[in-house]
């Protein structure tokens, strides 16, 4: 198991380099002069040049990238925000846990509820529960996160006044963002679980289990679900990406101080160091989560374990 793990982690390095290069390039070609943006229209040429020299903006592309890379690897220094002058790593350190909490909470909710509903729908195929759930799932897939967020705020914050509409510290603040973010993924997971279970239930080994005299409930959980998990985990892996992207939107709707919002605000303000750091962080987090999902695969499907030696 370990050699595989090491190999995967090493493989993440070129990807990290690639990601940082892409972001760096995109920022490089972004129109707008940070110096002017941050010092204002009236700033004189002298102070503009000063700003540029201070942040290395006058140097050629490759030099800038390499010095950035050097700083990150050797000093773990992601630079300083143009706007606040504070270290970027600090800004990320304070916002990243929030985003993580939001995303992981949403994926947990989506997976737990999605799989439960999916199994029930599969076992009770064509029942009212099944039909209603499938309709709701279709609605869930088609509703944009930001729209759902606004609707929930409208209903629960404005009309009913049950829940707050912003922030992420208290449990009541976290409820709506979690629900909003998990809705689409939950719908997809429900549908996938249902179809995967339906397929597995038709398998020969389920027939064997029945012929053994096993109880139906045990057959569903122990035999069917464990085999149905394999495609479900694939979907969960894909959803992780959507969730991390979606968290940016949820953070915007609910005014949550997370990394996503940091990145978007940074982009709008042309605060390059912040954007670089934030995007790099999100990409790395996504890669790590994918790695975990891959290992989950091997745990569930013994046929894959030989690959991981």
């Amino acid at each position: 198991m370990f050699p595989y793990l090491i190999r995967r982690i090493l493989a993440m390095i070129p990807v990290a380099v690639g990601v940082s290069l892409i972001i760096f390039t995109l920022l490089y070609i972004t129109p707008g002069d940070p110096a002017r943006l941050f010092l204002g229209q009236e700033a004189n040429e002298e102070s503009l040049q000063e700003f540029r020299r201070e942040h290395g903006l006058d140097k050629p592309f490759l030099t800038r990238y390499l010095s950035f890379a050097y700083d990150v690897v050797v000093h773990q220094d992601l630079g300083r925000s143009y706007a606040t002058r504070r270290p970027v790593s600090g800004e990320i350190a304070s916002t990243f846990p929030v985003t993580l909490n939001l995303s992981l909470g949403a994926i947990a909710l989506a997976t737990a509820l999605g799989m439960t509903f999916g199994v029930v729908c599969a076992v009770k195929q064509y029942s009212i529960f099944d039909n209603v759930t499938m309709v709701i799932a279709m609605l869930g897939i088609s509703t944009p996160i930001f729209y759902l967020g606004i609707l929930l705020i409208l209903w629960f914050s404005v009309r009913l006044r049950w829940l707050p509409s912003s922030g992420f510290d208290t449990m009541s603040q976290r409820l709506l963002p979690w629900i909003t973010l998990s809705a689409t993924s939950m719908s997809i997971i429900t549908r996938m679980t249902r179809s995967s279970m339906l397929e597995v239930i038709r398998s020969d080994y389920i027939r064997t289990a029945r012929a053994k005299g096993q109880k139906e409930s045990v057959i569903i959980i122990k035999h069917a679900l464990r085999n149905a998990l394999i495609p479900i985990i694939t979907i969960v892996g894909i959803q992780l990406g959507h969730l991390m992207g979606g968290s940016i939107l949820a953070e915007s709707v609910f005014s949550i101080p997370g990394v996503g919002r940091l990145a978007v605000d940074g982009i709008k303000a042309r605060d390059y160091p912040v954007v670089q750091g934030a995007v790099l962080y999100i990409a790395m987090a996504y890669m790590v989560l994918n790695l975990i999902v891959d290992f989950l695969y091997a745990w569930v499907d013994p046929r894959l374990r030989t690959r991981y030696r």
Partner: protein
Amino acid sequence: MFTLRKNSNLHLTLVRLSRNRLAVLGLIVLLLLVATAVFAPWLAPYHFATQDLLAAFEPPSWAHPLGTDDFGRDILSRIIYGARVSLQVGIFAVAIAMVFGGVLGAISGYYGGRIDGVIMRVMDILLSIPQILLAISIAAALGPGLLNLTIAVGVAALPTFARVVRGAVMSIVGQEFIEAARCMGASDAWIIARHILPNCSAPIIVQSTLRVAQAILAAAALSFLGLGIQPPFPEWGGMLAGARGYVRDYAYMTIFPGLAIMITIMALNFLGDGLRDAMDPKMKR
């Protein structure tokens, strides 16, 4: 022109599709949407930028069936014109992704080896950034505007298309009729165009339909965040962003644009699901 042969693959697919009521519904809604977009100037009671500050914040009425926004602009008209934007972005972004991603994927899948390795490496790097974030970054780099938004969404969707096409191509390349075609002296380009791509068309068509939905969602998300289409141009996501501040007092402003997005996405999803079921009947419910 081709004639529809009875019991040809296309014929069977269309028959199966027509039996799926949801898919047909989706198709009809989509056609209505396209019609709305095309005939917007004639359908919309007002121009999308026409302001009437005295009539601002009016709830739905006879004069303004969906109400007016903070600048007194008619929401119904803006939603109708918004259909143009959404459909344009959706279709052209997917076209970009399909053409460029498809070519890369086909080359990757067909030649394999080093080329495949290099292309897939690059795709992997792009895929390790969540798609919305990539679109946001590209949109920011290019600047606001419809064209830039389309490019951003299209490029962000490109790697997934490359993957899908590569997978489909690889499954076909291994089969013997490709070997046979090579023995006949066919060139690589010929083989890819005449033999491989037609056989991949089913998954590509299904993916494209579903991706248009995602592209429209992405465009709306970007506009919601303030990147992409700038006011006064109407985009459903942008309209939601503008209405957000008024959700307490003027809720109707937020409901309708979002509803427009939802209906469009649902129609596309129904159609995409229906196409998938129709093209591959083995994958029964």
